[in-house]
């Protein structure tokens, strides 16, 4: 063999190689120690700065219930889809299934992303069902995330819409009691520290920094069943009389609680798209009207309280009209010499005017103000109107006369109902509440119990077959009330064909529990009188209310025969 026996590598050279390798290993271990022990705080801070984020923990809004605890507004969990435009741009190929799931237009989506491309957080679609949210996330599109939100759901829909109101997409109260009790209802979101991956998805919850404070529940004074009944009857009446709008208010006589408040037209708070803002108005609180003859009991109250009149006082209304200055006050018929009961029963303008004119100048105004007219009721309802009473220092006699039968001042239906409560509860003006009251409500005495009782007795005669509002009667119960048929002011003139039909009443008459005001605005059917248009609504709703609240009948032997005769007459 030409090859020599191999001369091995020297141990020195191998030794150098091993030394270098083991040395490198030691250097690397040293570096690892440096990174993982000595500099760990700095490196972890850097890591946290990139991955640790503080996220809100959504707190749900308090529930609104009726007085029995039945839900009127509940927050249900929903998901909102949001995108990080930068990341989202990289996944254009996956856009079309996403657009399909969310029902979005591809072109709109492209425009949105292009517009907001330098933003970090853009909502793509708000408030979808959690199930659809799961589907969207299953598409696994980079830059697409869900945000848990809460959406308000209103089980009673249009029936309680005006009272309850609604929230906007950000869960803030916008209308009604949702707005009034915003601070009470709204939850305070908590804060949590999370670790997010680089695509912005939460991969770990580290700690809760601040507990979310869920909103508090709110129990309204509304009774769901009564509310529904009132809504149904009002809607029917407005439709039947071809009216423009209408309101019903039912109050608890002793507490001033609003048991039901409905208006027409209404709206569905769950799907509010394309609705006119006017239908959002809670007319019973925000709209004023001239109350007309429904004011006469307060004129009578002023007369009785003045001491110049008693329940048996007689007033001569002949010849059926009264000249006041250059103006004429008319009655429908010449009633002749009548007592005060008849004045109310027949709704004599002349009688009311005479009574008012015989009193000192400010007596009527003071009485109206004492009954709460011209000031808000204290219900706290957003946008509540105060109405106007005539407070001019020098009145012309005609102003005093018209005021006595309800013209020349404006009131809200709620104010009217509140004032009737004073007659019903024996003389106390009580604050109005939309929230259920736990304790007896202290009121302010404004007339003598005797006066209230007397007027109540007189008002019972209105709901007899001789009165203007026999149709307001409720079988088995005694009902007291007063009709009103008000000419509307159109361009400064009292119109001859536009009316508001009113009925304000209470039951049971001896010891009333409920006051109800019914207003039908601009009935365009054959009938337009309050006794024909508004009174039947009162009758049906009140009869339901008395039954629902288990009120004992106060007519022991209802005179069915008498009623039948009366009905035949009408």
């Amino acid at each position, binding site marked *: 063999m030409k090859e020599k026996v191999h001369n*091995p590598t020297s141990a020195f050279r191998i030794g150098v*190689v091993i030394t270098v390798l083991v040395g490198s290993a030691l*250097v*690397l271990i040293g*570096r*690892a120690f440096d990174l*993982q*022990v000595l500099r760990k705080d700095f490196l972890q801070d850097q*890591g946290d700065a990139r991955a640790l984020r503080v996220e809100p923990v959504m707190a749900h809004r308090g529930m609104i219930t009726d007085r029995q605890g039945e839900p009127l507004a509940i927050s249900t969990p929903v998901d909102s889809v949001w995108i990080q435009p930068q990341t989202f741009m990289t996944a254009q190929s996956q856009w079309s299934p996403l657009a399909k799931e969310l029902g979005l237009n591809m072109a709109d989506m492209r425009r949105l992303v292009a517009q907001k491309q330098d933003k970090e957080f853009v909502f793509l679609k708000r408030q979808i069902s959690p199930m659809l949210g799961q589907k969207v996330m299953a598409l696994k599109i980079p830059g697409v995330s869900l945000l848990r939100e809460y959406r308000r759901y209103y089980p009673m829909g249009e029936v309680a819409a005006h009272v309850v109101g609604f929230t906007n997409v950000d869960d803030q109260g916008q209308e009604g009691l949702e707005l009034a009790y915003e601070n009470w209802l709204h939850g305070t979101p908590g804060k949590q520290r999370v670790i997010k991956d680089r695509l912005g998805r939460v991969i770990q919850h580290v700690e809760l920094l601040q507990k979310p404070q869920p909103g508090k529940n709110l129990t309204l004074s509304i009774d769901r069943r009564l509310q529904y009944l009132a809504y149904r009857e009002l809607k029917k009446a407005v439709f039947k009389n071809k009216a423009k709008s209408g309101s019903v208010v039912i109050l608890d006589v002793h507490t001033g609680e609003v048991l039901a408040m409905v208006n027409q037209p209404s709206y569905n708070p769950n799907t509010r798209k394309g609705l006119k803002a006017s239908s959002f108005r809670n007319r019973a609180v925000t709209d004023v009207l001239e109350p007309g003859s429904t004011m006469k009991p307060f004129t009578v109250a002023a007369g009785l309280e003045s001491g110049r009149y008693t329940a048996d006082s007689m007033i001569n209304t002949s010849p059926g009209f009264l000249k006041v200055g250059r103006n004429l006050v008319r009655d429908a018929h010449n009633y002749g010499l009548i007592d005060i009961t008849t004045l109310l029963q027949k709704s004599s303008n002349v009688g009311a005017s005479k009574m008012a004119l015989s009193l000192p100048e400010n007596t009527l105004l003071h009485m109206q103000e004492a009954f709460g007219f011209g000031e808000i009721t204290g219900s706290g309802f957003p946008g509540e109107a105060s109405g106007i009473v005539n407070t001019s220092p020098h009145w012309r006699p005609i102003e005093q006369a018209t005021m006595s039968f309800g013209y020349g001042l404006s009131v809200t239906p709620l104010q009217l109902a509140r004032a009737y409560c004073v007659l019903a509860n024996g003389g106390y003006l009580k604050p109005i509440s939309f929230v259920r009251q736990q304790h007896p409500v202290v009121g302010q005495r404004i007339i003598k119990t005797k006066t209230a009782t007397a007027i109540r007795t007189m008002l019972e005669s209105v709901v007899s077959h001789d009165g203007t509002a026999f149709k307001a009667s409720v079988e088995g119960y005694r009902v007291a009330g007063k009709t009103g048929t008000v000419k509307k002011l159109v361009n400064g003139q009292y119109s001859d064909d536009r009316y508001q039909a009113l009925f304000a009443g209470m039951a049971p008459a001896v010891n009333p529990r409920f006051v109800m005001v019914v207003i039908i605005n601009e009935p365009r059917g054959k009938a337009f009188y309050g006794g024909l248009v508004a009174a039947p609504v009162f009758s049906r709703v009140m009869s339901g209310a008395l039954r629902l609240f288990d009120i004992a009948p106060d007519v022991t032997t209802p005179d069915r025969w008498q009623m039948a005769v009366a009905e035949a007459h009408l």
Partner: protein
Amino acid sequence: MSVSLANFGIADKLASRRTRQAINVDRKLLLITLIIILLGLVMLGSASISIAEQQTGKPFYYLWRQFGYVSVGVFLATLVFAVPIAVWQRLGPILIMVSMLILLLVFVPGLGRNVNGSTRWIGFAGLNVQVSEFAKLFCIIYLAGYLVRHTQLVRTELKGFIRPLLLLQVVVFLLLLEPDYGAAAVLLATAMGMMWLGGARFSQFAMLGFLVAAALALLAVSSPYRMERLTAFLNPWADPFNSGFQLTQALIAFGRGEWLGVGLGSSVQKMFYLPEAHTDFVFSVLGEELGLVGVVIVILLYTYLVLRLLRIGRHAEQRELPFHAYLSYGIALWIGLQAYINIGVNMGVLPTKGLTLPLMSYGGSSVVVMCLAISMVLRVDYETRKGDRLVQNKKGIV
């Protein structure tokens, strides 16, 4: 592996006549290799789970593919084990030509695959092969043969020192064209080490080493993106969201790991913060999940692997099997250098290069070639010990 060898029946005649104990491979080397491979699979599974889920919808996509590559690697390794070392020695000059050829194939349109700006793969029949991995092994085989053929020349004359390096320069040049800076550096450093162990004179070695370093420096400066990478490594915090992004994320991973790690599977950095978490930067995820303890264990595993490979080479040299020895030395240097460089890159002591962590990083070509290389050293050990027995037998007869 011995069992599968027996099953395949491809061991040589001598082996087949012996008991299983007689054909036993170096158990320590085999064991350490299997430990690294298994640990690698576990870490790869953990590091790739999120990215695989996001890219393919299958969280274990990369794990299963790597498992397939390892299986292929082990299978091919058993075949390679059956090939006598002498065959490789004879093939040496051909293999370096082959490595040049396959490195050229990368540039053939339709065949080469460009990923992230580098053309390192050739694709055929649905497979992408990173040819530089094979080129490295072939060059080591060639150089081991050269050192045996021209021992005296290498040890005495400059010509003997320069000649093989010129040939290697061609390979290095092709690697730089791809570009695969890391593979070129590892190949050159391995070659230097082999020449050193082959007995090249210190002065020549130092001089050429200086020249090579100068050339590499020039290349780094001439290519701006390499320069950027270089400065990023020196102070990654200067520009942590651009050039220093990957490295700072890797360093954060180590920092989060502390002593014992955040626990297997709990890495945050692998959640899309650390790019290449399952390939070149799998070690950072290991550092985060298994902590300093895991890092030290893995560094020691590689050190032990390299020392074992060197020891087998030394044993072969003592049995006058110089090619066996140089082959083992070469493979030891290669695996050791690549492992340390990769770990160094992960920990920010070396500039970022596209180098895999041998046997652990995701990548079929790398893991298969590493298996083949280890298998060759196992064969070296086997043949060396066969020689031992023959010597002992002779002694017994005489």
